[in-house]
């Protein structure tokens, strides 16, 4: 495959600067998973519907199957692998998802977590309705969302210095 034209891409992924040559048609999700071995972000549709591939790019949520790797040139990309706190403890969202039983098969979870992270940065104390609308681009087949909502409320409370009251159902 030596005659395939490739282009240089420089991105900062989870705080690390990375440089690679990629085909123009390579989707960002494939670049992350195949090139960088960051397999936390998943593929549920490749048509921008399910949100399993959601990552954070320059502070916003992006479905990484919707974007070419070359379009991420110069961007700061964060994936679930970089979500934990720098001291190694779990992020409030990771803790919330476990405490509130916000996941089952775990396939949607990385995308949900990364979406929720940006949601909380935009709206640090969302209502249930705001959370439900805020994660509407991320499908989950297992949980019925109720405990995902609680998990995000748990994290919001923790990040705001409160203790979340409700127990997981």
């Amino acid at each position, binding site marked *: 495959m030596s005659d395939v034209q490739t282009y240089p891409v420089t991105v900062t992924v989870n705080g690390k600067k990375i440089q690679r040559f990629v085909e123009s048609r390579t989707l960002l999700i494939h670049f992350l998973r195949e090139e960088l071995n960051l397999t936390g972000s998943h593929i549920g549709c490749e048509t921008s519907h399910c949100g399993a591939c959601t990552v954070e790019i320059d502070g916003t949520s992006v479905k990484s199957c919707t974007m070419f790797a070359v379009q991420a040139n110069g961007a700061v990309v964060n994936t*679930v692998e970089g979500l934990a706190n720098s001291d190694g403890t*779990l992020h409030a969202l990771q803790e919330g998802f476990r405490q509130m039983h916000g996941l089952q098969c775990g396939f949607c979870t990385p995308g949900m977590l990364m979406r929720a992270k940006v949601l909380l940065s935009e709206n640090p104390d969302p209502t249930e309705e705001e959370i*439900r609308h805020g994660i509407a681009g991320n499908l989950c087949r297992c949980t019925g969302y109720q405990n995902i909502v609680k998990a995000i409320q748990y994290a919001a409370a923790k990040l705001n210095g409160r203790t979340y009251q409700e127990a997981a159902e």
Partner: protein
Amino acid sequence: MNEMVITREQREARLEGMGCKRKRVEDVRFTQGRGNYVDDIKMPNMVHGDFVRSQYAHAKIVKIDASKAKALPGVIAVLTAEDLKPLGLHWMPTLAGDVQAVLADGKVCFQNQEIAFVVAENRYITDDAIQLIEVEYEELPVVVDPFQSMAPDAPVLRPDLDGKMTGAHGPRKHHNHIFEWTIGDQSATDLAFETADVTVKEMLSYHRTHPSPLETCQCLASFDKIKGELTVYGTFQAPHVIRTVASLLSKIPEHKIHVIAPDIGGGFGNKVGAYAGYICSIVATIVTGVPVKWVEDRMENLSTTSFARDYHMTTEIAATKDGKVTGLRVHVLADHGAFDACADPSKWPAGFMNIVTGSYDFPTAHLAVDGVYTNKAPGGVAYRCSFRVTEAAYCIERGMDILAQKLGMDPADLRLKNFIRREQFPYQSALGWEYDSGDYHTAMNKAMEAISYRALRAEQKAKQEAFRRGETREIMGIGVSFFTEIVGAGPSKNCDILGVAMFDSAEIRIHPTGSIIARMGSKSQGQGHETTWAQIIATELGIPADDIMIEEGNTDTAPYGLGTYGSRSTPVAGAAIAMAARKIKNKAQMIAAHLLEVSEYDLEWDIDGFRVKGNPERSKTMKEIAWASYNSPPPGLEPGLEAVNYYDPPNMTYPFGAYFCVMDIDVDTGVAKIRRFYALDDCGTRINPMIIEGQVHGGLTEAFAIAMGQEIKYDELGNVVGASFMDFFIPTAVETPHWETDHTVTPSPHHPIGAKGVGESPNVGGVPAFSNAVNDAFGFLGSTHIQMPHDAWRVWEAAKKLGVHA
């Protein structure tokens, strides 16, 4: 020694055994992106495979020209049926006793059927190559409507079965007929109808849908020519069965096949069967000598691997005028698609549809099921249900509502009047099952009280009057559903898959320091087995759940089991775990007796060890016993502390529940708003209430989707319409209602820990609750039955038909 001063409650609590809301161990890796799903696995020199699929639903293949594709740099191989023929692998047996083309053999029978398998260096090149393969077709007439399938002049869909008028399940009546399955006393049932005060009859369609787990079906096959060994990673709900099938088909000895199911991103029945993608990946790795990965895309998933339902149930109930049911007669026309690839136990071509008498004391019943071929995708899996139990529950629960309407009775009262009473258990049903335990009246009364049922009915009545007076355009529906499931397949006397009895298994090994590794024949796809199985062992053996590692899915290390589907894990594997633990406990008791120099009979179990009766100061913990078993076993006793159990259940289990849905429908938009959904489940002993409720939330959400819009639809040419997440309804967090959960506990008398299984109850009971709510809302306007799915468009159409838009 801290150990000495802790209280009994603390000893109990630190086990995190059965009944506690233990947080899941799986979550630690899943929340950090460290799951290990099939597509995450890479092997050196790995290549990718993908399919050329049929554009037509029914056509002869005149020619396949792959020359341009083969010339494309990066393409390694293109396989067609001609390449598989010498290996005898162009057709494969299905779980239902039929055969299915692995790659189309001269003809295609459904749209998107597999025609050729392209192997290339990466997924992008396989896609390029697929575009370059030219297939010449000659179109054939198409059968889409199952009711037309057996018309005298219907085209022959399966010429390969030409002249074979006996199928795997007996005689075939027509060239597109697969089987007829009947059960029950026909003449007694006919008589019940002849003599009944009241009868109702309605054709209830349960539309075609799809389990669509978020992770599609996929595998990675690698053949080592030198060792003659095949390794297959895959999304397998039943990895051992896949290994056996792979061995039978490939002729590679079973011990040289390593089938491994790693983390699975949801299954819901989609990942039970053996698919063309698996076979082709295996052939391709053998042919090319490099590992081959196959990953379905979403369109392929929705349109080819395993649809669910497509049952058309003509339902009749006979009753006395005061509402006592006297007979049930059901005829099902079952659309199985182009190949009969239903995933049912071998002897059950219609699954356990004969649970259709539901929770009611029917003196007599008769059921007949006709399976037919059409030009649609094969499958017929149990989408979050035990085999055809959702269909059965929908049939009887809609039927009871229709009867209530005819009698002018309240549907909840009609159910209360006809429930099997507590003292009738174990109960022999008219269609051959022995229900293990139940207390339906208690559950129903608790549920009715919890939602203030009578007050809701009063409110509904007032709303109906207001609607009639023209004061509102909103109507209110109350959906009642009381389901009885049959799960835990199953006893070897009546359940097998390809001749393998449907037992399940567990192997528990205690290490010298008292920690445990345990392996099962089941396979979690999100159910949290790593958490809950450890809880069972913790309670049985007194070792903290945190010291117990659960491993599933590796067929080299796990004992043979039939896998996880049909809510069979807790009833079967869960029982095997308890039985294996009890074998260990028996041996531990001998060791403890030896250590304490007393007779075994002088010992009693106490939370986490044995103590001398009447002298509780003298005791040995399980940890101490574990050490002794490796260090100083009693003379004559084998060292070590481990056990295996293969559990053949004596009966199925019969979970049940009472579900209520309260809905408000805008007749001008057809939009239905779920005001309340209350679900009371009785799944017997509860192992982890947090996980149970999570399962109920998930199952209800799937039920909501199915009842309110999720459908795999075909046009009249057999084109599958809307096989993407753009059109196929998967509820988001916005549409999904809030779920209220509740429970009663009626343990299974024959299960070692009394557990019945729960994963599928909410889907089984949920669908009729939603559909009954929609139908209940329209009942006062003169409607008897509106077919599912109840999306806004169809609800609007139903309203229009009833003349309320005028």
